[in-house]
């Protein structure tokens, strides 16, 4: 199994750490993983994106132009990455702030109102975990227990108390993701 994912959004949306948790979760179930961020000043204010690959084999190139799944969290990223989903692949997005919705018909499109749900949950910080949950509903490539382990590994000890809240957010995402 190899799953090639792009996660793309604004700088502050927790895109990179979401990717990191996914990667850690992969490690917890003994997979090979690669996490490749966009970097440099383009991140400033603007978009941030990260490629995450989970695989049972050694990963060759961490730089991809085509993805099994694109998780898209703002309009710029939609413009850039809708076309990068492999035919038959998945595009998951949060419609908040999206002005031009995805139009491809050869891929499966899902949406998750994560921003809204995060506000409802009273913590903007859970946003990316809700998105992660939504993704895992569509592609259950890592077991929930490994997500929790991955969270533990990726968060500094002082943040461990927030793990239950994060797992709750993941659960929320599983619940609210919807097919377009």
């Amino acid at each position, binding site marked *: 199994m190899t799953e090639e994912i792009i996660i793309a959004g604004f700088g502050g949306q927790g895109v990179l750490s979401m990717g990191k948790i996914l990667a850690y979760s992969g490690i917890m179930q003994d997979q090979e993983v690669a996490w490749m961020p966009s970097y440099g000043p383009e991140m400033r204010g*603007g978009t941030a994106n990260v490629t995450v690959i989970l695989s049972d084999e050694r990963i060759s190139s961490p730089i991809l132009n085509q993805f099994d799944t694109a998780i898209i969290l*703002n309009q710029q990223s939609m413009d850039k990455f809708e076309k990068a989903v492999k035919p038959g692949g998945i595009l998951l997005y949060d419609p908040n*702030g999206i002005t031009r919705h995805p139009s491809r018909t050869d891929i499966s499109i899902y949406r998750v109102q994560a921003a809204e749900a995060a506000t409802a949950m009273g913590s903007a910080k859970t946003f990316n975990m809700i998105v992660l949950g939504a993704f895992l509903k569509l592609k259950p490539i890592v077991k929930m227990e490994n997500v929790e382990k991955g969270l533990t590994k990726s968060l500094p000890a002082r943040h461990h108390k927030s793990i239950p809240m994060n797992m709750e957010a993941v659960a929320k995402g599983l619940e609210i993701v919807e097919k377009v």
Partner: protein
Amino acid sequence: MAKITGDIVIDIEKCKGCEVCNTACPQEVIGMSKEVNSKGYNYAIKVNGNCVGCANCAVVCPDGVITVYRAKV
């Protein structure tokens, strides 16, 4: 005596929602929108009509997105 009134035009697509103008306005004219622009910023908006056209907001706006008018009425 003529009263001074003013008005500002904010280029909301270029506004980055930094709130620096807001802090600088003596008339508390400026607030931040709930909406985001295409860059994802909660841009500046006018929240009242008390502008006196002092240009403070425009002068401190790092992105130069405010145009100011002043008139005696």
